[in-house]
């Protein structure tokens, strides 16, 4: 009797589910606020930005913005040739941004993997260590940036003190201006973002069955061999996602260089978002700023495209 009821319930549920999903009209009004907001604050500004990039909109023409002269591709040509009045050209910034995001990702990947392997098996105090490993990542970026600005201060910052005490460098290395500023930015960023890879790898490690390692051990595989033949191949999907997301978010990192170096930064550390910011909001050259941000976006689309492909939208269950 009871069994029958359950079976009946399941049959009914199945058909009703179909009715609910397919025949019933979705309550569209519920999605309207989200669509409306996103249209007004993201989509429309996006197109305004494209239009602006073809005009000479600046602090003088904004009062009569409809008459801002249309200049075609001049902003794009300027972006690649001379750039903003202060700092680097967009082409130089592009190079800084690409090397920054690729280099940091390359550095944090092994660090994150090693950290995840260290805490993957249980030991006394693991919860504490795991919490400790998260701290650099969860501290707000502006706090990290202020911290590293101080650590890299010339003459008395901890980095210079340690380097000179070990006779590895001068007490006056000048980390925050000139060519070293790029490396100061990379070091600070590596310190604050490696736990991202660590978290992703940790999540990936949960999915690897212990049996694999056991049979590998039986076959006489060393730990190193197991790592390269089992762990790394099994981690490939999540690691791919992690590397893409990391590259994307590093490319967009504005806060760290903005606070570490102030504006305008040395050309060697003038990443694209910062350059767009200075061009737009300090020299008020909105047209040029928009052109530079579009160049950024087009570049970002390359990793973003692969990211969206990896997520396989539409395959997930509704």
């Amino acid at each position, binding site marked *: 009797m009871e069994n029958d009821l359950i079976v009946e319930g399941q049959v009914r549920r199945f058909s009703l589910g179909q009715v609910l*999903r397919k025949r019933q009209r979705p309550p*569209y009004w*519920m999605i309207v*606020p989200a669509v409306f907001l996103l249209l007004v604050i993201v*989509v429309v500004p996006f197109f305004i*930005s494209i239009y602006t990039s073809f005009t000479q909109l600046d602090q003088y023409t904004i009062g009569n913005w409809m008459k801002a002269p249309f200049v075609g591709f001049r902003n794009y040509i300027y972006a690649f040739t001379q750039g903003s009045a202060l700092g680097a050209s967009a082409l130089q910034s592009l190079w800084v941004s690409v090397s920054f995001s690729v280099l940091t990702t390359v550095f944090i990947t092994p660090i994150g993997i090693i950290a995840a392997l260290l805490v993957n098996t249980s030991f006394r105090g693991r919860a504490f260590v795991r919490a400790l490993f998260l701290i650099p990542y969860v501290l707000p970026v502006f706090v990290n940036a202020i911290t590293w600005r101080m650590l890299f201060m010339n003459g008395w910052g901890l980095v210079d003190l340690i380097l000179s005490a070990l006779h590895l460098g001068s007490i006056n290395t000048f980390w925050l201006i000139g060519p070293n500023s790029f490396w100061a930015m990379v070091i600070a960023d590596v310190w604050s973002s490696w736990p991202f890879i660590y978290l992703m790898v940790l999540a990936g490690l949960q999915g690897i069955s212990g049996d694999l390692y056991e049979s590998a051990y039986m076959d006489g595989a060393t730990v190193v061999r197991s790592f390269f033949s089992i762990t790394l191949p099994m981690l490939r999907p999540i690691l791919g*996602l992690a590397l893409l997301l990391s590259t994307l978010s590093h490319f967009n990192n504005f806060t760290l260089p903005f606070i570490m170096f102030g504006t305008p930064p040395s050309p060697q550390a003038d990443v694209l*978002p910062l350059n767009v910011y200075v061009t737009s909001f300090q020299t008020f050259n909105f047209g040029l700023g928009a052109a530079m941000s579009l160049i950024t976006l087009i570049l970002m689309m390359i990793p973003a495209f692969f990211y969206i492909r990896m997520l396989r939208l539409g395959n997930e269950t509704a």
Partner: protein
Amino acid sequence: MRFVGIVIFALFISVPMAYVVLVSLTPDTEVGGGSIWPSHIAWNNYVSMWVTVPLAQDIFNSIIISGCTALLAAIVALLSSYVVSRFRFRGRKTFMLSLITMQTIPQVMLLLPLFVVLVIIQNTLGVRLIGQYGTVIVTYLTFALPFASWLLLSYMASIPIELEEAGQIDGCTRFQVLMKIVLPLILPGMVVTFVFSFLLGWSDVLFASVLTNSASQTVAVGLQTYISTGESGGTVFWGQLMAASLTSGVPVVIIFMFFQRYIIGGLANGAVKG
């Protein structure tokens, strides 16, 4: 072997942090004076930081702005993610795709037209928009809303549909089903969405540095007052600055630790802090 590794990592993490704590307890006049050990512990930094910059006001602004942003984002995302996860309709995939795309758009690219439009509206209508809480909150939604929608979508997918059908049979409208059946189930997801969106707002510097004024500035912008006095030739009160940084950063760390187990789930679903 593992022990050595963990010690190296622990030093790597804690040496900079320990130095920050140390400087936060060093008298301002002694920072950079040659010795890294202060002559006495200057608890005073934690007192005077409230006076040197309007830290309490800044923290209050941050709480208001990030709180309203997170609340709005969570509510709007709740409604939209329910429709997207329970129904198939034209434009559904486009909507989901645009949520992801929006998270990859450089924020500075949106700030620029938003700023231009705000200035034009200000000039045309003679109203003041830049510096208002509302303006900052709406612009924060540019990153908080796509993030919140995407995060809630994965929570929504994990809620069984059976209960809702029971509610439907009892004659509830879709909205009643959402409020009475789905909302209590998804409440943990809502809390996580709220907290993460709040923290996104808390950490923002870009939008706040352009769209706030001295009265409505967030703590992230307020702390820069210390640094900018140095850039304009004054002395930087490093001791106080470190004390204030810790004050604005440590609560965030504690909140994150509290929600630690949700972070990994959120990350694996592709929702990442910027």
